[in-house]
């Protein structure tokens, strides 16, 4: 990694600083590899990638080294949406456009937010479960970390949808801190106290899938859809293992959070920003909608519901992994 004097390959357009948020989840690792692919393919000219490991302090430090190295645009995925505010102000002061992936900063100017509507994950999951369960039953929800915006959006949307649309469904919300073993322990306890649980909503398949399957298998509760005693499970993330589980009849559905599109449009908007392009709210050419948010724009990428019916759809990112 010696980058002394390796300046100006991209001519006038300048370099992009890209910070990856973490490297310990399957979802984010897919995102990271899509970014690498994009950079290698010459989408943009980028500084060496940094990784803030879920730590906002590291993210801010990394951003500073980007600007010190002359970055002209920055791609980040701040997992803390509050504490990035003053960094965004500073970048705005230096006229460096920022593309925020996955999360929408609470304050501070952004050029574009590239994300799927996390509230919609919660609502879609609720709708799906409600329908499958016929409006009544008992559902366990693995909440993410309470201090994560995505977790909170999913929790709030799920709770309010359940309350208004399916009041007869009892929701048992479990705090998990995005930890699979914690989720497993709490699910085990809940299954003992409420053996009639017939639905599970897990907010991140990337962390909860395997522990949940292992537990249900041990308890002999993994029954195929349709069989009596089947527990309906819907997940979020849409990683390949979730697809496998859907095909095997172990879970019912997931919401594919488009790791590929996150990476693709992060780079796309970075390039556009360097070129001085501007965007307006409204539908886009890639089946999404740009909406206006107080501190900029947000491109709300589609996050399709995946069930047995469309699990083989080649356009889903998890089906492309390992190919090409």
């Amino acid at each position: 990694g010696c980058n002394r004097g390796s300046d100006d390959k991209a001519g006038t357009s300048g370099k992009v600083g890209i910070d990856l948020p973490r490297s310990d989840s399957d979802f984010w690792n897919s995102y990271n590899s899509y970014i690498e692919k994009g950079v290698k393919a010459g989408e943009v000219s980028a500084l060496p990638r940094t990784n803030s490991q879920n730590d906002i302090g590291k993210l801010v430090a990394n951003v500073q080294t980007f600007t010190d190295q002359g970055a002209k645009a920055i791609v980040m995925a701040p997992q803390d949406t509050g504490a990035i505010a003053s960094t965004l102000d500073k970048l705005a002061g230096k006229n460096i456009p920022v593309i925020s992936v996955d999360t929408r900063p609470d304050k501070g100017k952004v050029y574009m937010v590239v994300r799927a509507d996390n509230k919609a994950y919660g609502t879609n999951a609720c709708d799906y479960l409600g329908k499958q369960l016929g409006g009544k039953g008992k559902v366990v929800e693995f909440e993410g970390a309470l201090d994560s915006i995505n977790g909170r959006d999913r929790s709030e949307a799920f709770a309010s949808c359940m309350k208004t649309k399916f009041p007869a469904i009892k929701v048992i919300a479990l705090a998990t801190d995005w930890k699979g073993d914690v989720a497993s322990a709490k699910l085990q306890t809940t299954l003992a106290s409420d053996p009639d649980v017939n639905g599970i909503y897990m907010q991140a398949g990337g962390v909860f899938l395997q522990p949940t399957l292992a537990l249900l298998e041990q308890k002999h509760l993994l029954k195929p859809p349709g069989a009596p005693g089947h527990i309906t499970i819907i997940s979020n993330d849409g990683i390949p293992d979730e697809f496998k589980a859907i095909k095997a009849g172990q879970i019912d559905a997931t919401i594919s959070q488009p790791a590929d599109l996150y990476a693709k449009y992060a780079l796309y908007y970075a390039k556009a920003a360097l070129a001085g392009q501007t965007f307006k709210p409204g539908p886009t050419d890639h089946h999404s909608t740009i909406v206006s948010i107080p501190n900029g724009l947000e491109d709300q990428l589609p996050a399709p519901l995946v069930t047995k019916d469309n699990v083989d759809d080649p356009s889903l990112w998890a089906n492309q992994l390992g190919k090409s």
Partner: protein
Amino acid sequence: MSETTELTPDLAVPGKARAAAPRFQLSRYRDLSLIPVIFVLGVIGFIVSPVFLTSDNLIGVLQQSSELSLLVLAEAMILICGRMDLSLESTIGVAPVIAMWLVLPSSGPATFHGIGLFPTWSSIPVCLAVGLVIGAVNGFLILKLRVNGFIATLGMLTMLRGLQDGVAQGKSIVAVPASFSYLGKTEWMGAPAAVWICLLLFVIGGLALGYLRHGRALYAIGGNTEAARAAGIRVDRITWIVLALGGLIAAFAGVLYAGHYGAISATQGDGWIFQVFAATVIGGVSLNGGRGTLFGALTGVVSLQLVVNVTTLGGVPPLWDKFLYGAIIIVALIISRFASGEKQD
């Protein structure tokens, strides 16, 4: 089990020592000081939910404690011996990953590819060996280079987690050999095999620490290293062995984890070391060495896991869950301090 073996001899104090008896017994009860806490938790659990006392639930609590309890077993031995090892929380993750890298074939349909250096059936021994090597490296840093053990193992903690990220490319490894995941998921006599194995290891460890010359040596080393050396105990050698053994046990916890949760998780063990210390110390093992029993440490794990169980059964609102957990730890600590009647320093 080690409870009774520890206690009976003490009750048989000869009449001669009447005056000293009360004090002496109190200080021995230190290892039992969590019993009232567990009792209180049990009562609360019973009030909160009728399910609490079902064998299903209680076995579940034990199963959930199993991997943590092994790290606690390892840490307790290391602490008694007057050292500490923070890196256990990473060993539990990295040892299985390296083992997979060494045994899995370099091509195939799975997402994770290794180098296939050893046959697949050897995955567990290889994993244990990796743990042993990690513990031995800790020992080398602490005993040969004489660097500060806290920071050295903290550095190892970070480095090993990073090694896991690097080798596994940050992914969880789902396709592990069946032989590897067998122990963590099978049941023997109506309870998970992991529970039996952990109990067995605690009993063996407890007996070794209570009745074997080399086991007792840990207490002497941790209590007064110079005195131990003067008494002819090979302090460095034994300490090194204990550290290596600690790594091995942590690696074994990783084996159980992989079976229990169906994959070698990328975050396996991440952040556990605080829990490990909490359980060990709350269970009566001294951070300064030379004091405590494995039985006490085990009650520590069980107490912590019971708190999680009771709050889950009680349906605590998620936003206040962590607050309550912390508050209960403090209350438990206070109860156990007054139950044992000893100041804790």
